[in-house]
């Protein structure tokens, strides 16, 4: 059954006609052409598809579009863009945190949710927040450093505007 939905994605309001059961990931990638959120398992097991819905981390591969009427969604594209990177993206670049990079969209969103609720996380708190996200390349130590670095930048106010 097609449904008419209104949702805000990265600050823009979108009207979408789709079956209520369509996964948010498909809405983002195929209806809206925002390919940054990634398919890894479709099973809520890897975090490659992670986005924020009203600031909370959500596995977009499994969250049905029908439940998102009126909600606000943030994806990696909304975090920052080339030339206007979010401090988290900049920190990942500075630490060269990534090998293949496929996990990074999800990592960035999980880290964003963490820093929004806890601007000064300990290493253990970062580990706990990112544990649902798989990185098969073993970029973990760099990702941990990058999140800590971004937290410091944001605390110092250098990341104003985000």
């Amino acid at each position, binding site marked *: 059954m097609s449904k008419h939905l209104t949702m805000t994605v990265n600050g823009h309001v979108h009207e979408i006609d789709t*079956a209520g059961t*369509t*996964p948010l990931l*498909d809405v983002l*990638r*195929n209806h809206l*052409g*925002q*390919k*940054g*959120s*990634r*398919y*890894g*398992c*479709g*099973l809520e*097991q*890897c975090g*490659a598809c992670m986005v924020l819905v009203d600031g909370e981390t959500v596995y977009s591969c499994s969250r049905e579009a029908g439940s998102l009427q009126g909600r606000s969604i943030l*994806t*990696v*594209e909304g975090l*920052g*863009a*080339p030339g206007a*990177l979010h401090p988290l*993206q900049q920190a*990942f*670049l500075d630490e*060269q945190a*990534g*090998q*293949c*990079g*496929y*996990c*990074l*969209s999800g990592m*960035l969103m999980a880290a964003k949710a963490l820093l929004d609720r806890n601007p000064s996380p300990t290493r253990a708190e*970062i*580990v*706990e927040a*990112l*544990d649902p*996200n*798989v*990185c*098969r*390349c*073993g*970029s*973990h*130590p*760099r990702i*941990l450093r990058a999140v800590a670095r971004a937290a410091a930048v944001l605390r110092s106010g250098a990341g104003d505007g985000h």
Partner: protein
Amino acid sequence: MVISQSLRDNPRLDRWLRFEPDRTVRVATGKVELGQGILTALAQIAAEELDLRVDQIRIMSGDSVEGPGEGYTASSWSVEHSGSAIRAVSAEVRALALARAALRLNAAPEELSVLEGEFLRDGTATGLDYWHVAPDIDLSAEATGAVAPKPVAEHRIVGRDIPRLDLAAKLTGSGFIQDIDMPGMLHARTLRQPGRGATLLLLDKDAIRRAAGDGVLIVRRENFVALAGEDETAVRKAATAAAGAAVWDRPRRLGPEQAGAGWIATQPSHDRHIGDPMPESDGGRVSMRFSRPFLSHGSIAPSCALALWQDGLLSVWSHAQGMHPLRANIAATLRLPVEKVACHHAQGAGCYGHNGADDAALDAALVAMELPGKPIRLCWSREEEFGYEPLSSAMAVEVHASVGTDGRPVGWTTEIWSAAHGQRPGVGGAYLLAADALETPPPERKPFDIPEERGGGATRNAIPLYDIAAKGIDFHLVHDVPVRTSSLRGLGATLNVFAIEGLMDELSARAGEDPLAYRLSLLTDPRARAVLERVGDMARWSERDPGGAGRGTGIALARYKNASAYAAIVAAVEVGEAVRVTDVWCAVDAGLVINPDGVANQVEGNMIQAISWALIEESRFGEDGVASLDWQTYPVIRFRDIPEIRVELVDASAHDPLGVGECAGGPAAAAIGNAVAHALGTRIRDMPMTRERIIEALMRGS
């Protein structure tokens, strides 16, 4: 200078290098980016030799039509093969351009130099650059190898931490094959044939349509079936429904017991002895047996490919490891002339070896051939990737040492039972998966493993690096395993090094000597000694705890393929209900390093993957096939288990560059194995070192 194999195979300069109208230089490589940073390293090499900035180089990678053919991006050869070809070609083209410029300026070539592509005469600008003289240079000529590359002391770009060229895109939501969108594109998924020889008796198409709607096409060729349509959500539903709507005759049957190394070691095999016979000795013989299970590559992204069949030309986009081999394999399977197939590399997630990437490309091509003019984007499911990609074979390894009266080995044999590790399509009779489903399947895959002179497959690193008078391998290549097996990062080296370094620790204990000192007493190779000594310093080995009481520290060493990068590793563990790795130190000698941070990144990743192999990973079989089909049944390491990691590079810039992507896996697993033995006072010889195996070892040990 020596001409590398890649350059011998692709001798024309214009296969490698071209001056572009936008004042950049296009450098082509047959090697592809797999997350290992190779394109950045190759751009550094070209920029160095041509005296350009890195951003003046544009890399074209994995183009089967225009670019050089360099086989597969595998076995850590890329820097050694493609890198040396690009270095030689760049040096030669620079010299040709300089000669042309000298003619035009009426100057002696020695008076000229190059800065960011512009010619300087005695240090001042001449107004002339590469692009001015480019039309006068004959790049269709063959490389002569006559121009010496720059001496290391003059390097400005090689040896520096140049940031990865592809990372910024990947941090802002683009950069992957999965993101490619074409007008009119259809999404596709397969209904997998459950094993070679299975035939489709019945497919309830109505059931599929009921589940997914009428917008989904059912494409069938013999026993190959795919679902295609504009709506990816519906296609995915159709694929799920199809699995339940199909009745197969003779699907493959597996037994859970077949997943074990114990089963492998009792199967019929081709037997071969390599190297020296085993001498007898006065100090007796010590033997110890080790094993590891089947492993999955576990790429975080299921394989994906695009294909378009139009005007008699098949275009394929794939993240597989070699576009030239893929082109040949697809052409052979579809009985098309090779020039009617073009394969283009597009980046995917890390694959760590031969996973489903090539097979997905054939799948997409098959669907495209049935739907001419329609771009097809075919994506595997998570379950399909775990269930149908080639696995890395379970192995058993028994190491035997003949010990002299001084407690040192005088003879060594590594005895190996394994299925093949080198079954990439087009190699030794191997072929792409869906070929099994077509009208006339190719002859059954013959067991083929990589010969020792190319690094070996199961036998990789089976010869210890140590000074031992007689060293050999007894290799039992098992032929009938019920799943496809092929290359996973490190191949046989992971278990071979785990076993060799395990026995080395046992021998040092028998001799009453410190494991590090004992190893050094058997090593004259100065580079091997240097990495061992360095890691000993890094980890303060001389202050090592006595061990026991659940804490231990272990050391291990290997030189990948006995010919590539050296890695020495110390691991510290705590063993309670499970093994917890707390610290890892690694010293690497990679020869001349192109990008130090890139090397460190690869080595860190390789060690983390090895912790996962050593402690957690195991692919299991059920009746219907592989039973480890998701991240719950095939868990891998996560953040909570990541130790502190320190990597240092030993300066060896006088030596040729060596590939590093696989050098640390074997020694990392082995150092953990030795640390666990140090912690428990008894050794766990089977990977993964799980809770059950800790209990078993403790019961055996007491």
